[in-house]
């Protein structure tokens, strides 16, 4: 647990809550207005027999929607998710999962740009210099990262170099026991990245996954490669990994772990160190998205601060409305902090309540 003094955030939290409630009203109005909403939610409201525009006054009222089912995102027609208010706009499609079966898909227009621009504001310029180029080593393909990291780089005046990794292939190799092939593939990815990083000295910022970060640092020194800031995400991170990265891999570079996914957006970390056991603490980009920690059995009950529960996401943008989605993760509920006067999550990890093992952290 944190040993830092908890400041009085009552006023800030109340203001944030008012802002959230107002945002919820606006988003619900948009998604359930026949002129602007998408087919999925308009049909849903017809079948539900109540008008969310009339009845949803704030965030707490989203409870009436029950839990968002991720199965709704598998299969078509995907256009059922495009809000009529955005008709004619170029639509991107981002997928999540998909190593077996039909992947979940979410449409995007500008959300990823907004999310990453907001996130950009949290990055320290000293370590992620404006105008510096970026190296992206990790999943691209149908994932949001494909465009998001490049947009982040461009937003900060940089150019993004990219090396792709296909996590679905890695998961298959692991399931088949082809560990040597996984290693060869990882080497192939890192080989490409090293060639680029050595050839382009203005690459000073790195996005990669925990496993690829380790693999990169086994082959080269971040300092010698000229990397000043590392934005790391895509899979689970443990406090031990966080500590290991800080103590043994960074060599003075800034380490920015993130928690995010295609469905929610991007959560920002609060810096921690040895005094907090290198806990990984994230805050959602409220009011555009919220993260809560709920009781594993009684999923409409938010657990107390410091208690463990299942992660529940809510996305509240004009492009995508996803109330009360139970993630495949668990975490401890974290208190608000000065910078983020709303709930956060601590040490997110795969949900232990599933009967089958989730293949996680493979890339």
């Amino acid at each position, binding site marked *: 647990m944190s040993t830092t003094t908890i400041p009085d955030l009552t006023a800030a939290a109340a203001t944030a809550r008012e802002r959230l409630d107002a945002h919820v009203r606006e988003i619900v109005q948009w998604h359930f207005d026949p002129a602007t909403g998408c087919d999925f939610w308009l049909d849903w409201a017809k079948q539900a027999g109540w008008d969310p525009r009339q009845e949803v006054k704030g965030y707490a009222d989203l409870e009436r929607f029950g839990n968002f089912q991720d199965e709704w995102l598998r299969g078509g027609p995907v256009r059922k998710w495009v809000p009529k208010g955005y008709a004619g706009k170029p639509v991107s499609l981002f997928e999540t999962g998909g190593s077996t079966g039909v992947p979940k898909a979410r449409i995007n227009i500008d959300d990823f740009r907004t999310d990453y621009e907001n996130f950009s504001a949290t990055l320290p310029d000293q370590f992620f210099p404006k105008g510096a180029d970026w190296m992206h080593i990790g999943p691209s393909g149908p994932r949001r990262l494909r465009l998001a990291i490049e947009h982040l780089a461009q937003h900060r005046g940089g150019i993004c170099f990219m090396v792709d990794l296909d996590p679905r292939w890695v998961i298959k190799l692991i399931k088949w026991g082809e560990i040597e092939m996984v290693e060869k593939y990882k080497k192939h990815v890192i080989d490409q990245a090293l060639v680029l990083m050595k050839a382009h000295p203005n690459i000073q910022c790195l996005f990669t996954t925990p496993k690829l970060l380790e693999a990169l640092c*086994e082959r080269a020194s971040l300092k010698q490669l000229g990397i000043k800031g590392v934005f790391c995400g895509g899979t689970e991170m443990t*406090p*031990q990994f966080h500590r290991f990265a800080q103590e043994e891999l960074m060599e003075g570079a800034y380490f920015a772990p993130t928690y995010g996914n295609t469905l929610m957006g991007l959560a920002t970390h609060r810096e921690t160190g040895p005094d907090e056991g290198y806990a990984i603490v994230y805050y959602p980009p409220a009011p555009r998205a919220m993260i809560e920690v709920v009781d594993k059995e009684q999923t409409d009950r938010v657990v107390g601060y410091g208690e463990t529960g299942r992660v529940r996401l809510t996305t509240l943008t004009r492009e995508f409305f996803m109330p009360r989605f139970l993630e495949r993760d668990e975490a401890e509920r974290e208190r608000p902090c000065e910078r983020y006067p709303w709930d956060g999550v601590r040490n997110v990890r795969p949900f232990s309540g599933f009967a089958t093992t989730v293949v996680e952290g493979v890339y």
Partner: protein
Amino acid sequence: MLHLPILRFGQPYRSLDVATVPDFRTRKPYVSVSQANGGLVRRDLLPQNQAQMRKALDALPVAELIARTKKAAELFAHETLPVGDQAQTPADYVRQVSATTGLPHVMVRRNLEKIRGVMENVDVVLAGLTRGLPLEILDSGAGEIAGHAMGFAPRGDALGVVLPSNSPGVHALWAPTIALKTALVLKPGSAEPWSPYRIIQAFLAAGMPSEAFGYYPTDHASAGEILRRCGRGMVFGDVSSTKRWAKDPRVEVHGPGYSKVVIGPDQADDWERYLDVMASSIAENSGRSCVNASGVWVTKHGRAIAEALGERLARVVPRASEDPEADLAPFADPRIAERISAMVDQGLREPGAEDVTMKHRGGRSRVAEFDGGTYLLPTIVHCDSPEHPLANREFLFPFASVVEVPEESMPEILGPTLAVALISDDEAFRRRFFASHDVHRLNLGPVPTQRVAWDQPHEGNLFEHLWARRALQRATA
């Protein structure tokens, strides 16, 4: 709670990932053990780091490494050594191993003695494994023997060992590694973190360079990294967990032994004389070793032998951990005992096999509870055919099948067998065993299968696993 750290190049490192190991009886946390994350393991085992580990040993002559190993043997067996940030006497060690594995104290002490014996006699062990090679050749890399130039090259800088939890005796296999100038990277069994830690502490107290030792409690995936990254490897486990390494020549696999007692046709009518050998081969060390017999294969009197063994071994019952007469170990995880027993019962449902110990147990289950522990009682199965599913099975408790087969079918019908106690004076019969590819260790005469001379190779020769003969020619003067 006592905590065991990771040892990175001999230095303690307390991880933020911690696993707790329970007391087998109370199921309450007994010790916490730091867990190494995969990246840390891989980083420590980078080739340059393994080279440094070995270099620390290479600076010392083999003779000195042998002397320090002998000193470590005494320290391991008799002195107080660090365990985490506490002190551990030999009595503490015995109690701790027993608490997390269930092994009775007397068995832990026996295994302690086995480890001490190998370390104390490391020169004899190495003489046996190297066939008397003057070991100073390993210091210089080259020499001359009987007029022949002789050179040896290390096959790797470090030996990575993925260890089991079932019995500390297995540590005797890798203990001579340090004297062979090869660094050690150990992944302890999850329920038995104690022995490898204490052996390392004994080596360090004996003056071995700390850089040469790695101790990495970790998960299955990172254990694989240890085997993949170290120049040489050794893995213990069941077929499913070791099959991945079966075709990797860098890794020595220690899986089930399927060891057997074989009574030749010339001794068949005298089988009663060998009942002690059969019983101890099956049941000593609670049947937990790969060299424990899981079969008695004979040419006749199979039924009578099974009945006699069943009657004898049914006398083996659970006793208190501290009881000097204890010869049965409980299962640290009771579910494993239930699972194993269910597998035996499933086999028995196939016609042609009978659990002859059942009647001596009064028809009760072989799973027994005693003093908070869960035990599997010794089980002898008579199989009327070598084809029966239970005829050639191995389980982690005193279990054996008695099988009657034609003389001419042996040894081929035995299949891969780690240790055979061959009770026969028939030279022709013996020669067939000498010619077998499948039989590893041969104990000739009434020598129990688990009686192991450590100067003999065991599932591979440690010296040959770590060193390769190099072709060497010199310019003539």
